[in-house]
């Protein structure tokens, strides 16, 4: 069964690289350029996991995470936050809002793939 991953980031170059990476790993990939698009994609396509950038226009990753967790259907949807801000407060905030994991940019592609695989497999 092919898993669907939603990648939300406002940096086009990051989107390009992540999309390429995840497709290579055998996932179906959806992309969103801002928070609102991400929410729409979740509603329409029901992804199995979200890679969510924090600093995005329209709605931030925190907003998206909070809104999803407020809905019954997405209580357990795995969300991995990606952020370039390395402050402890940001990490704590992401955790508090219900993010499954937190990855600091720039990240190692292998590490990211491992985390995604762990989460996707444990949720089945």
């Amino acid at each position, binding site marked *: 069964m092919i898993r669907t991953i939603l990648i939300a980031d*406002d*940096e*086009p*170059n*990051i989107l*390009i*690289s*992540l999309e*390429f*990476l995840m497709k*290579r790993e055998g996932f179906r990939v959806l992309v969103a*350029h*801002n928070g609102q698009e991400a929410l729409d994609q979740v509603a329409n396509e029901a992804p199995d996991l979200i890679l969510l950038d924090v*600093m995005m*226009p*329209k709605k931030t990753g925190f907003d998206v995470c909070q809104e999803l967790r407020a809905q019954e259907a997405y209580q357990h949807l795995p969300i991995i936050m990606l952020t*370039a*801000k*390395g*402050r402890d407060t940001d990490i704590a905030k992401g955790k508090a809002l219900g993010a499954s994991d937190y990855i*600091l*940019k*720039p*990240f*190692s*592609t*292998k590490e990211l793939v491992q985390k995604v695989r762990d989460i996707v497999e444990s949720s089945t």
Partner: protein
Amino acid sequence: MLSTSLVIGVAFTYLLILFAIAYSADRAALKGRSWINNPWVYALSMAVYCTAWTYFGSVGRAANSGVWFLPIYLGPTLAMILGWLVIRKMIRIAKTYRITSIADFIASRYGKSQRLASLVTLITLVGIIPYLALQLKAIASGYQMLTTPLNSTVLYPSHWWQDSTFYIALLLVGFTIMFGARHLDSHERHEGMVAAIAFESVIKLIGFIAVGVFVTYYLFNGMSDIFRQAQAIGHLNALFSFNTPANPLAHIQWFSLLLLSLLSMLLLPRQFQVMVVEAVDEKHLKRAVWMFPLYLVLINIFVLPIALAGLITFGVGQGNADLFVLSLPLHSGYEWLALLAFIGGVSAATGMVIVEATAVATMLCNDLIMPWLLKRNGFGLLQCSDLTQIILWIRRGAILILLLLGYVYFKVAGDAYALVSIGLISFAAVAQFAPSFFGGMYWKGGTEKGAWGGLLLGFVMWGYTLMLPSIAKSGWMDTSFINEGPFGIALLKPEQFLGLTGLDNLTHALFWSLWLNIVAYVGMSLWKQPSARETSQALLFVDVFKRKTHSAPVFWQGQAQVQDLMQLMMRFLGQDRSTLLFKQYAQYQGLTLEQLQPNAQLVHFVETQLSGAIGSASARTMVESVVDEEPLELEDVMHILEEASQLRAYSKALEEKSLSLEQATAELRAANEQLKSLDHLKDDFMSSVTHELRTPLTSIRALTELMLDDPDMEWEQREQFMGIILAEAERLGRLVNQVLDMAKIEGGHAEWHTTDVDMKAIIHQAATSMSASYLEKGVSLQLKTPETVAVLRADADRLLQVVLNLLSNALKFVPSQTGQVTVALKDAPEGITIEVLDNGIGIAPEQQALVFEKFRQADNGVQQGTGLGLPISRQIVEHFGGHMWLHSELGQGACFGFFLPRLAHE
């Protein structure tokens, strides 16, 4: 005529009502519900100023001399204008130092001088007796007028025991004792009396206005009718004008009457009693100072009409003008109105008698009789353990004596003078208090000797130039000394002293007595140094507003026993009251009765309490007798004063210090907040920079890893990735440069190469270097510049940086192929304006303010630069004294512009 029994019955009933009011007011006060604790009653009680002399005498005076009755009421109006300043200070002093009479006030101010207290009392006594007689006369004549058939002569009884006036006097003694000396109060306050007086003031106003309205609008057709008829009687015209040929110095006489009544308003014993001693709250003064003059206006409106009506009705020179208020209603058959008018007159007279007799009896007792008794240890007084009853009986006796003296004066001299003259003689007597009284309130230099000399000289002059001639003219003395001077010395003629002629008798007497009084007071005060006690009292009086009770200095030193002081107080105030006062005092000090220390404060407290009961001079003597005092030297006074002022200064300094500490704390807190927010800003900046650095690094790392992982990656794919890596690396480099640039500019370390700059050339240079990018996106770039542009002093490279930044920004936001960007340069003498317009997506209003902030890029979905370009551009423009702006609407394109002044820099 009315029957004797009816008049007596009504008058007596009226007095009973008065007593009922007074009694109820006293009862209410005991229960803590004061009837007189409001400005209305206070103002009405001041109207005790209007005696029978006003009620009957004003009309008489108006009938003789027209408007000349008015200064007597205009003077008090003037006094009340300054009332809030002067009377308030009088009240404050009297309340602070338990002063209960005008004699005590003056004596206390000048070192609690016994002889001053006695002298002031004596002057008051001599001056007031005729005034009391006047009130008796008014009631008596009114009574006669009502009970004697019209047109028949009034027959006075030949023996005093047949004389109704004698019984009126006795009745008033009884009333005064009931109102004013029923019990002893150390504050000398009489709630019931004040309530009754206020009621009487209402009755006399009603009575007088009733007659006025009746005469003016019933007997005549209004005021104009009266005046018209009066003018028809030729010589009455003189009543309406100021300058009469007979009196060329009229304005001086007018002025002296104003001055006289102004002073009397403040210094008459009864005024002092109701305004100062009986004052409940000095705040009431604020309203009373204008309500009382208003009362005076009201009660005077009909004086002239009634006087003229009387003259028209009875004929000039016929009938007693003093009694027109009664005779006009009687003449027209309105006996009930005459009776009402009579009750009004009785109100005026009794009100005055009750208050005046109470006030003067207090003075007599405290300042004349008690000191004399205490000094001689009369009746073994010093051994007596409770003197309260004795004091009370002395007061009562004094009231009796006063009214009997008044009666005797009435019998002896009553018919000799018109009412109004008697009043003015009394006024002139109390006016003698003015220099030492007001001097004492406002001038620290006034001394006891000065006050003594001034009062004595003024009193003697008053007696010689005013009182003596008036007695002589009554037929009791040979008048030759008036006409030829004593022993034939013309220069000493009492009414033309030292040959001063032209003034009327009153002005003449007032001038000489007050002038000599002031000269002696000031002269003798300046001549000799005051004693320590005088100095200390002067300070306490003059600066009364500067001190609060608890910080007032206490001028006393020596040894004392609490027990002695307590026993002393019990003797004069009674056991219960003394114990209560001591307990309250101890409580105020935060101590128990046993813990009380016999210090200066306690001695001062006891002396102040005693002052209320027996006057300050006697209190001084009494305290001296039970404590072991050390004489107070001037140096001690200065020392105590200095200590007190140091204490005050300390507490003030402490207050200021704590205030400044508070301020410092607040400033520190604010500074700390600012530091915190600066710290926060720096934190934010670092975080933003980190974010901006990590974002391109993320792509670079991810893509590099992807290529490393897959050596067989297609060439096209690899080329795309390497292009991205290169772009991100360039972005990184740009970012590092801009961050450094920004830091340099903000830190003031940037290098500026200021030269003559041709802005037109710069714009063209920027356009040339951007043309490739514009061409690539298919965006047209238009330049609108004038033919020639004058140079300005700036850094050409930096300005090029600004224009490039604006051009590349614009390029990012315009659509490809249809995008249009215009650069417009406007040259003016004051400077150059450059605007870059685009037809891009525009910027929402709420975002516009943010674009110039670091790392704040507008949310518009278009990938852009570092977020530092615009902030740096703005810094550059501002460095050269210019400013930068943005006009834009969402969807309507944007216009970034900046202005550079020509003269601002260098």
